């Protein structure tokens, strides 16, 4: 008992704060980019055909990362060396020589290639080095030495570094490089020299000099099929842009975008058109319709662009261009975010502004364009466009048209596994979404989908999509239990019990024959012992309301293994509240035993008049301890929220992260107050009356906590005893005036700081 002498408020608050928050059981689906909704479109639908698609698809971040890993400049460079150098070695050994070998070791390699020494130790066993030495690739080795000398001037240091570049060193290297280029017979190495020289000048902000070097070297180099050409062009474009020749630069960037995957991201960001005139000028620079298409595609890639407008322009002069398919998929994915996004449930009952008129028009515009292109038989990929038309019809709400289009599209996608699979996914979404009534037959189909349909597993958003829609349909059919389980778990129901849902679920659980879907819902959302679990919840619900006969009836149907999961003794008296302090009493009850005991006490309180007051007192103790404030709160509550304490004036149902329908707390101590009053009324023992009055005062204090007056309890939050309005201290006053001479009064004064404060104020 000694530890209770410390301030009760600190112990209560600190213990409350130790309780962890709930984890989320939220429905719907979040993507890393913040999109919350459903996706039926497979993000990899185009990937197999080209590496271009991921740069367009808004949702293709993961694919894009993979692609970047495969196509970074280093990898491209190594592959180039493998193909174009004088000795064809494996990539690992090439990488060692190109990126990790020192200039000193390269000099030794050079000597070895001239039979003037042996290979450096670091390169012994390196196939590429050995090959170059034996094949006397001195031009290659000379170039690699030069490239390593250039590297410090071409690589960025720390972002924070502000050291000036060594301009003299750069000038000297440019001069040496030019001489080396002229001495080199190998055109591929000449190209690499040119790249190094232009890059050096570019990075040293000598833009015009870089362009001059480019023009000087160009006639001296005859290599057309190297990726280095695109890198070189990138530097030229960069210099042009710096010199204000933005349109020329943008045109070059667009050609690099089309042809050089490793640079695509970079040049896309550098592409810049300021005015209509510049755009026209850039279009005029294009040498083919294909190049013009790239310009429109790049413009369409801007987030929030009106893709269909760009598609119409592309279609006008190059209807079969593959970019149209990429843009189509891009726009569908954007529309999907609108029509199957966060507000999917609203889609069912459209409000005036969702999906808004503008979004609908955008969808219909694309649908008209797609339908018209299909009709004209001018589409780059008949199967993709056919299923896209159906999906757009579905998104527009025309399920009938979508179904017919899908049926007609099936032969067109035959043999293309990705498209076949995509069509199946679209059809499945349509099938689910078309259900506006559910019956035994459909539920069997649903069970089959859950059991064996691959998309239930492979599409991470599909299960949420399906259950969200089914929940709506069940709701319309007044099957609230099934509706609830489609989107919530039993924990949500425990957090805030709804008798309508509990009874509906019990009726379902006790059905003679459950179909597989019903069984799935009960077993997966409630648990294998679903009947017992539901009766336990029903019994607890009645217990919280003091409906003991109903509670007993329900709890008597619960298996002992479930019942015994909660063991409390609410009859244990504690002068001070400490919800998590261990019990000193060995007597414990499960909820059924507790209900029996409460019924027995109620009976005895009414019939055993000699002990009536005592029974009333203990009933009061039990009901107090089962509320939020007592150590036996688990009898009422499955989850006691720590921060609920601070929001008591707001009501009993608290918003809680992870509690879908809120978390109900049991703050009401009026039933226990009633019993304490009865006890005081019936007793002739001043000690018992004093205890009852003290407990009544605690009940009154909880009433204050729940009142609006408590909203500004700055003292309380600061860890001080709050000043309580006099209407909430009537029982403390009674205790002071009537029971001052009792032993209990003295004990209470000693042990309860609150009471001491109020008694002496």
């Amino acid at each position: 008992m000694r530890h209770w002498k410390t301030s009760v408020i600190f112990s209560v608050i600190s213990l409350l704060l130790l309780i962890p928050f709930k984890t989320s059981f939220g429905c719907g689906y979040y993507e890393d980019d913040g999109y919350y909704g459903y996706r039926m479109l497979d993000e990899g639908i185009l990937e197999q055909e080209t590496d271009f698609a991921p740069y367009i698809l808004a949702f293709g971040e993961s694919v894009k990362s993979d692609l970047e890993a495969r196509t970074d400049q280093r990898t491209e460079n190594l592959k180039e060396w493998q193909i174009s150098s004088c000795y064809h070695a494996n990539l690992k050994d090439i990488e060692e020589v190109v990126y990790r070998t020192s200039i000193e070791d390269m000099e030794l390699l050079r000597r070895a290639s001239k039979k003037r020494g042996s290979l450096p130790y670091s390169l012994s066993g390196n196939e590429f080095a050995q090959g170059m030495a034996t094949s006397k690739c001195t031009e290659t080795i000379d170039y690699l030495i030069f490239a390593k000398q250039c590297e410090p001037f071409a690589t960025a240091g720390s972002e924070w570094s502000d050291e000036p570049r060594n301009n003299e060193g750069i000038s000297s290297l440019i001069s040496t490089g030019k001489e080396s280029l002229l001495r080199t017979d190998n055109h591929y190495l000449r190209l690499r020299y040119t790249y190094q020289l232009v890059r050096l000048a570019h990075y040293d902000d000598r833009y015009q000099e870089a362009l001059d070097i480019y023009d000087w070297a160009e006639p001296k180099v005859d290599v057309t099929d190297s990726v280095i050409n695109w890198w070189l062009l990138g530097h030229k474009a960069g210099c042009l842009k710096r010199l204000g020749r933005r349109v020329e630069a943008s045109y070059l960037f667009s050609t690099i975008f089309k042809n050089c995957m490793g640079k695509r991201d970079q040049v896309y960001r550098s592409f810049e058109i300021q005015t209509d005139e510049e755009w026209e000028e850039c279009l005029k620079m294009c040498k083919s319709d294909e190049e013009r298409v790239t310009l429109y595609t790049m413009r369409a890639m801007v987030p929030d662009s009106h893709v269909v407008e760009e598609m119409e322009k592309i279609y006008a002069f190059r209807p079969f261009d593959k970019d149209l398919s990429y843009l189509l998929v891009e726009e569908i994915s954007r529309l999907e975010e609108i029509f199957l996004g966060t507000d999917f449930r609203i889609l069912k009952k459209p409000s005036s502004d969702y999906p808004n008129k503008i979004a609908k028009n955008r969808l219909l515009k694309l649908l008209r364009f797609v339908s018209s292109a299909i009709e004209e038989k001018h589409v780059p990929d008949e199967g993709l466009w056919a299923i896209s038309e159906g999906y757009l019809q579905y998104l527009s709400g025309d399920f009938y048209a979508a179904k017919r289009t899908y049926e007609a599209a099936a032969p067109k996608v035959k043999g293309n596994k990705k498209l076949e699979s995509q069509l199946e996914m679209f059809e499945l979404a349509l099938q689910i979404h078309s259900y506006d009534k559910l019956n035994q037959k459909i539920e069997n189909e649903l069970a089959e989908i859950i059991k064996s349909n691959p998309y239930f597993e492979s599409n991470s958003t599909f299960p949420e999509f399906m259950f969200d829609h089914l929940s709506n349909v069940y709701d319309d059919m007044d099957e609230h239990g099934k509706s609830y389980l489609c989107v919530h778990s039993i924990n949500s129901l425990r957090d805030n019990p709804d008798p309508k849902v509990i009874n509906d679920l019990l009726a379902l659980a006790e059905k003679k024959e459950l179909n597989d879907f019903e069984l799935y819902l009960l077993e997966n959302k409630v648990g294998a012992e679903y009947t017992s679990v539901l009766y336990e919840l029903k019994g607890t619900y009645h217990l919280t309301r003091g409906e003991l006969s109903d509670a007993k009836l329900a709890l008597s149907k619960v298996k002992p293994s479930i019942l015994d999961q909660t063991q409390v003794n609410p009859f244990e008296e504690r002068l001070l509240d400490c919800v998590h302090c261990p019990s000193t009493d060995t007597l414990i009850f499960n909820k059924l035993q507790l209900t029996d005991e409460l019924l027995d006490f109620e009976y005895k309180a009414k019939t055993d008049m000699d002990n009536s007051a005592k029974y009333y007192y203990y009933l009061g103790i039990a009901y107090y301890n089962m509320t939020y404030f007592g150590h036996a709160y688990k009898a009422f509550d499955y989850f006691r929220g720590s921060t609920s304490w601070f929001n008591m004036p707001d009501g009993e149902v608290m918003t809680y992260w992870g509690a879908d329908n809120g978390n109900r707390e049991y703050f009401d101590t009026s039933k226990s107050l009633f019993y304490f009053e009865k006890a005081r009324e019936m007793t002739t023992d001043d000690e018992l009356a004093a205890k009852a009055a003290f407990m009544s005062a605690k009940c009154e204090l909880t009433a204050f906590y729940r009142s609006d007056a408590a909203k500004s309890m700055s003292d309380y939050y600061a860890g001080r005893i709050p000043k309580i309005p006099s209407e909430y201290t009537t029982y403390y006053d009674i205790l002071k005036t009537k029971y001052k001479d009792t032993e209990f009064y003295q004990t209470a004064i000693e042990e309860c700081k609150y009471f001491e404060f109020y008694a002496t104020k």
Partner: protein
Amino acid sequence: MFSVLLLVTLLGCGNSEPPPSLSFYHWQSYLDLTTEEDELLLSVGTKRLYVRYFDIDFQGGKPVPVGVMIPRKGIRENMEIIPTIFITEKTMRYVSNEQLEELLDNVIRKINGIHSKVSPTDISEVQFDCDWTAGSRERFFLFLKKMKEKTTWKISATIRLHQWKYPSKTGVPPVDRGVLMVYNTGKVSDKNEENSILDMDDVRSYLPEGEYDIPLDVALPLFRWAVLFRDGKMIRLIHSPSLSELSDTSRFSKRNHWTKVIKSTYLNGYYLYEGDELRIEEIDRGLLMECAQMIKPSLNAKEIVFYHLDTTITKTYSHETLENIGHIFSH
């Protein structure tokens, strides 16, 4: 003794306070003042220019400088440059204690490096601009405190209106002085907003009841932007759109403060589609005066910093207008 006090009192009674000095923020990628910009600085007697040197963002798990300003042309010798650094809130939320120490050294080195290319005089003051929140305040204030300890610079910080109004909740930064940013008062993405740059009702609601714990100067807006709405949603801001372009009736149709795109077109490098809507927001002379008059009684500004210096403002605001704003604060 008495006569000295009397003299001071008498002198004090006779004169109104001198008008605050007028300065500008320079918030562009290149420091390359045009003749018009330079003339405006001269005409209003600007002695201090707050030049954004770089931003600090948190990328790849560490704070990095981004948008580093490139000096292209020198500044008049008698112009004091105040290096100004914008720090994203995210940076101060995520930076670790170890990174903070390194960041301080990096920032000092970077500022010195840029400053040596911009001005021959030593740095006297550096300003940090960060819209701190409860989650980043502690770290940002520590950063400011340590910056002051590590350098001889005066340190100033920008103060948002809500921070001015609720100092006990938001905290007061440990700096020598603050500059109250009286702009961006509204919700720019709200289509019903008329002018999110400066709404007098919003400003009124932020007027504080008590004194602020550090001396405060004031920053007033001198900019124009177009808020682009597409498909009913705000998607971007277009800074300093050309009014002459917007008056091209073959591409734009104007109604009140809204401009509708009637033919897809480029504007300031952004491609606009037919049907797009632009809300043109700018600050006229009257609004600027009204704002100055409203906030004047609540703070004793010694300096007014206009945000921000570019060629478009030289055509919109005369030096008399700017001087008159200064005079409002002197009465």
